[in-house]
């Protein structure tokens, strides 16, 4: 079982769109996939039409008083399950802080799912917190969507440095450009140049496309409702690259 997380300190960079589309494509590839919507905003749950509610809330899951298994919901797609968000996830830092070895907690919770799933995607809330640290320790591959600006590159460097300083297991970082505005020269320059210079930046970039925004109306992955679209093709390329590197 591999654990992949979509993560960025910044919000609104395309984490959820990536998690939803890649988990769908992984399932279409024949893998058994679980997506855990860790963000209390519950966007991934919404996109799969699943109500963001977990009995006992985040506390019960993190403490282990409620089986993760019992909270999992099937999506409308074969082999793709979702562990929904819950509004109480906003307090996960506090709950984690009250456990022993909080940064290893998530890895321990996920370990028993290895029999049922080939890949687990974690869709993380923005920010850098105890939860992020626990995610980093549980993750094999960290997928970091970047908006191609100088500032966001600085953030990637900060993140890489932070991970380098972690004890124990460190995830493999794979950044990729997201929400590229083709009208902006700077976007295009950075997005074409950086992948050739750095091996932690994917060759595939996801443009800013209205079809991706349309996901919130269709409430489904792009490749499910517009399989022949450019957006779907971009995510397929990204998935091929991620699969090649992480699985």
């Amino acid at each position: 079982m591999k654990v992949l997380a979509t993560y960025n300190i910044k919000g609104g960079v395309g984490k959820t769109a990536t998690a939803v589309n890649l988990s769908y494509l992984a399932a279409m590839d024949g893998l058994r996939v679980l997506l855990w919507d860790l963000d209390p905003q519950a966007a991934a749950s919404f996109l799969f039409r699943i109500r963001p509610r977990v009995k006992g809330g985040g506390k019960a899951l993190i403490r282990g008083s409620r089986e993760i298994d019992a909270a999992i919901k099937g999506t409308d797609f074969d082999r793709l399950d979702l562990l929904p968000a819950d509004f109480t996830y906003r307090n996960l830092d506090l709950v984690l802080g009250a456990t022993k070895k909080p940064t290893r907690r998530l890895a321990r919770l996920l370990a028993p799912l290895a029999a049922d799933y080939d890949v687990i995607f974690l869709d993380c809330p923005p920010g850098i917190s105890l939860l992020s640290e626990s995610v980093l320790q549980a993750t094999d591959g960290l997928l970091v969507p970047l908006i191609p600006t100088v500032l966001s590159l600085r953030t990637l460097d900060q993140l890489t440095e932070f991970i380098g300083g972690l004890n124990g297991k460190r995830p493999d970082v794979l950044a990729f450009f997201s929400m590229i505005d083709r009208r902006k020269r700077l976007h295009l320059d950075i997005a074409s140049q950086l992948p050739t210079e750095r091996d932690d930046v994917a060759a595939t970039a996801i443009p800013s496309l209205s079809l991706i925004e349309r996901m919130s109306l269709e409430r489904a992955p792009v490749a499910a409702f517009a399989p022949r679209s450019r957006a779907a093709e971009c995510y397929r390329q990204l998935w091929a690259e991620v699969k090649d590197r992480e699985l």
Partner: protein
Amino acid sequence: MPAFSQAVVLAASDRGQPGELGVLDTLAPRFSVHSAGRSRTVRRAWLDTFDWRLHRAGLTLEYVTGGRPAELVLTGPAGDQVTQQASRLTWPALAGDLPAGPVRDRLCVAAGIRALLPAARAVSTVQELRVLNEDTKTIAWLTVDRTAVSYPGAAQLPARLQVTAVRGYQPQAERVAQLLADAAGQDGAASGPLDAALAAAGRHAEDYSNKLNIQLSPDMPGRLALRTILLDLLDTIQANVPGTLRDIDTEFLHDLRVAVRRTRSALKLAGDVLPAGLAARFAPEFKWLGDLTTPTRDLDVYLLDYQDMADGLVSAKPAELAPFHDHLVGQRGIEYRRLIRGLRSARFARLISDWRAALSGLGPARSGPRAVDLATARLRRAHQKVLRQGQAISPDSPAERLHDLRKKCKELRYLLEFFASLFDPQAYQRAVKDLKGLQDCLGEFQDRQVQQQELREFASQMMADRDTPATALLAMGELAGQLGLRQHQARDEFAGRFRDFASPASEHRFRVLTGGASQ
């Protein structure tokens, strides 16, 4: 945790296209139903052994072809399923001859040496629908199955809906299943499609068993009780003829043979309640039939035991026994052809039709014992014979004495089985158990002796063939030694087994049985 899944059988009149099935309207407004793709056509064969071993174990085996890759689907008592892809299978087939996989592994245990045969065949149109909740989230899959049965009789089954919950949505799926069941007027669990297919042809599962299950009443005339028993045995003989002629598996002949032996015992032990001369007229014919089946069955037993015997060799290598195996197969072919000539002969056809006519025309005797009196008198006599003959056996007695005792034990056992319905079930079980220990020991003794004699004959036959290697004869010699050892062990055990059977406690149990037959 297996997903919740429940079947609902629709009324025969609800025959619209899946999207128009009237019963689906009852799900609104809470749920809506949407198509999930085109329908597909699949062919199904339900398989079981002739004696319904899978059905008795709560298992259903389907071979599904058409559309997707062909597969075997084995459903357990709790609805749990094991599947295995397997293309171009033909039936009948022994479980051991199926391609390797999880289904075969379970079937080898459940079906054993009996072949799998189609119990029913059908063509189904299958369409999948989604059931959505108010969030337009799929909460269950609805499989609409329209099945036209082609075997054992042609029939259109009512449409069948299978509601399968999406993970995490069991309560809603249960609600959907309940609404559909209510609308279809279904009370409780739906019967399986196999049972429905059989029922449509006027049949039912488990309509054959090699165990006797004859219902008698204590006060019926003894002659009519015997007639009931003999007709039941005749049904068994006839039921096993087609399978024997097609050589589907070894047990058709075995069951046929046992029914013949039981018939002969019934004629011998109680034939005097039949009209004068009837038993004497048919007994030689049934002896002929029994003798006709013996050589093939003996060779079958050898071949069934062959692998164990080969694996049990210590000095010789199992492969050295191969010429013996070839010889057995060759002899079996010769004897089997002789057997089927007999079963296709006018003599056999006449025996069956005359015997049925004779039994069917029987009325009650003007005088004669009631069933229960007949049963107890004959049982006591048979029991006494076993005790008397057994007590006369000493360590020096010749093997023939033990063979005779085995026959008497068999007769006692058959009488118990014929009249089982007249006795208290617990007392009956205990009496059979007492007897069985002794029978097993005597059977081992005699079977091993007969096998040694046969082995000598096989060896001389093979010697006549100059190509037989010496290693094969040496391996057979070792085999004979092992059989002799087992025979000796059985002989050593005999005294103890007989002592148990003749113990005061066992005798008391038998007296309770024959004295306490329900009046």
